[in-house]
């Protein structure tokens, strides 16, 4: 199996080295490039030879979101994982519709745990979007919104969708039958108004609603 090729853009040298050594020690991963700034990233990263870009959201000469957008425009199958010290997940709402997928967001605290980092990078490489579990769990539905109208079970299911879990993983996490998870997920889509024939990807839309209407 080909290794997952990862590029790291992080301005703090210590942090960058920690991420690099974490990923290098895990079988199945290869660090293709490590940069400390947007300028360095432009120089060192070849988006065509990359599966996941691991980008610090705050860079001295720019922004991880913009770097990720540019890389993904050149390689649409590229996964982008943003790293930040806290919950700035609202920046994902700035993405244009053509780039709603394959974007993950990990807090720096979580990224220091090899297990969480590796799982998130792998899922992102597979084309999923993973939002940091600890950040998602701390979010609450905003008053008077569509999220607030969901039942607590539905809110729980939506949070797990936001974490990037598949239906099977949700079933395992909640100890439910697969069929029952499917029903819950469909109920969430219906409650959020995402069941029309125009909805190609209700999962992506539901997660964006989660971001827009929770805090």
């Amino acid at each position: 199996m080909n290794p997952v090729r990862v590029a790291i853009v992080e301005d703090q040298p210590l942090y960058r080295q920690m991420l690099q050594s974490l990923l290098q020690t895990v079988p199945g991963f290869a660090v293709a490039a490590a940069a400390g700034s947007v300028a360095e990233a432009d120089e060192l990263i070849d988006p065509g030879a990359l599966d996941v870009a691991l980008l610090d959201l705050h860079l001295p000469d720019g922004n991880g979101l913009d770097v990720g957008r540019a890389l993904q425009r050149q390689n649409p199958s590229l996964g982008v994982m943003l790293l930040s010290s806290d919950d700035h997940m609202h920046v994902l709402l700035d993405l244009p519709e053509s780039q709603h997928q394959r974007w993950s967001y990990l807090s720096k605290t979580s990224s220091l745990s090899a297990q969480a980092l590796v799982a998130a990078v792998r899922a992102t490489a597979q084309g999923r979007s993973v939002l940091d579990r600890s950040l998602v769990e701390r979010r609450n539905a905003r008053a008077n919104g569509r999220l607030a109208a969901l039942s607590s079970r539905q809110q729980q299911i939506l949070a797990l969708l936001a974490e990037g879990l598949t239906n099977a993983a949700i079933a395992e996490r909640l100890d439910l039958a697969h069929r029952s998870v499917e029903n819950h997920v469909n109920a969430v889509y219906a409650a959020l108004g995402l069941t029309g024939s125009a909805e190609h990807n209700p999962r992506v839309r539901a997660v964006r609603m989660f971001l827009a209407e929770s805090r």
Partner: protein
Amino acid sequence: MRRPAAAPEESAEVLASDRAADARTMLIVVGLAGGVLAIATSVQAVLVLGAHSVAYRGMDPTPIGDLAVRIAINLITVLSAVLMALHLRIHERRPAAWPWLVAAAAAAASGLRGLLQVAAGVYPVADASAYLSDASVAVVMISAVYAVGLAVTEALSNARLAERRRLMHAAQASDALASLQQEELRVRRSIAEQLHGTLQNRFVLLGAELSDIARSVDAPASRRIDTVRAELDELRERELRALSSSLYPEQLDRGALPALRALMARVPASIGVEVDFAEPVEALAAADATLDIARRLALVRVAEEGLSNALRHGNATNVALRLAVDDEQVALEFADDGEGVAPDAQLSGLARLRDRLRGVGGTLELAAAPEGGALLRATVPAG
């Protein structure tokens, strides 16, 4: 007028137009005052004093003919005085030189006048004293006309320079203010960056280190360390972030839209938030990209003001942010469903904000929101 050393930066065109204006003033004042005097003195001599110059030439003494001759001579004299003033550019010389130049020009003009009078036979040729006394009166009168002309020209020129200097100072002051504001923004941005980047990362790493230590000690100590760590995290995420974004709004470098979204994302979850960016968002984003930091910041500050009013005084449960764009401007509306604003409220914050908007060529108004609370409506020019 004399070129003052205080305005060396004026261009050659400005200097030329100033000279032309001064010469025009001089011409008009000397011409008018001299012309009026020329006619008035002729009328006085012929009709009031009854002088009959033509009699000396042995012709019929008709007052009208005599009057015409005297007026013609005086007007030619005035014309020569005007031409001399402009040719010598008396008004552009040092005031110390004025008396001599004026006396010389006046003497020359009245000399010319005397010659014309002799030619026309105004006085008997033998009566030299009549010519001389008339000429000395003429020198005084022409000098007086010059003096009036110089005084008026000087006054107008000074007024023009004072106005120009006032405008120049106003422009310099506003330049200085703008560069101060830019410098302030730069410093704010750099401090916010430090808080947000470097300091936050240190906190994260220290937190991880604490967790490591907590695992290697006994349970009670470990619990205490975990508590400290949780507090550190809280400090980092709430205080540090709030400090950083009050200095320089999050995402402002990326645009007003991302910054406004970041602001609205921080509204407490107990408040309903509607963010309505007009479709197509691409057009809005394109207009956003043309806004400089000052205009973006002005828009964000309006939303901040609306938000803080809604939360602090208005008891709002819902707020709405709407953003729209046309060819000329980006328009922002911030509405809440709180108590609204009392008509006599002291709105010093709002006045400051309005100044800020005006400073970037925008507008700000406060109205009643359809939701029942206050509605802030702001525009900034696009492009």
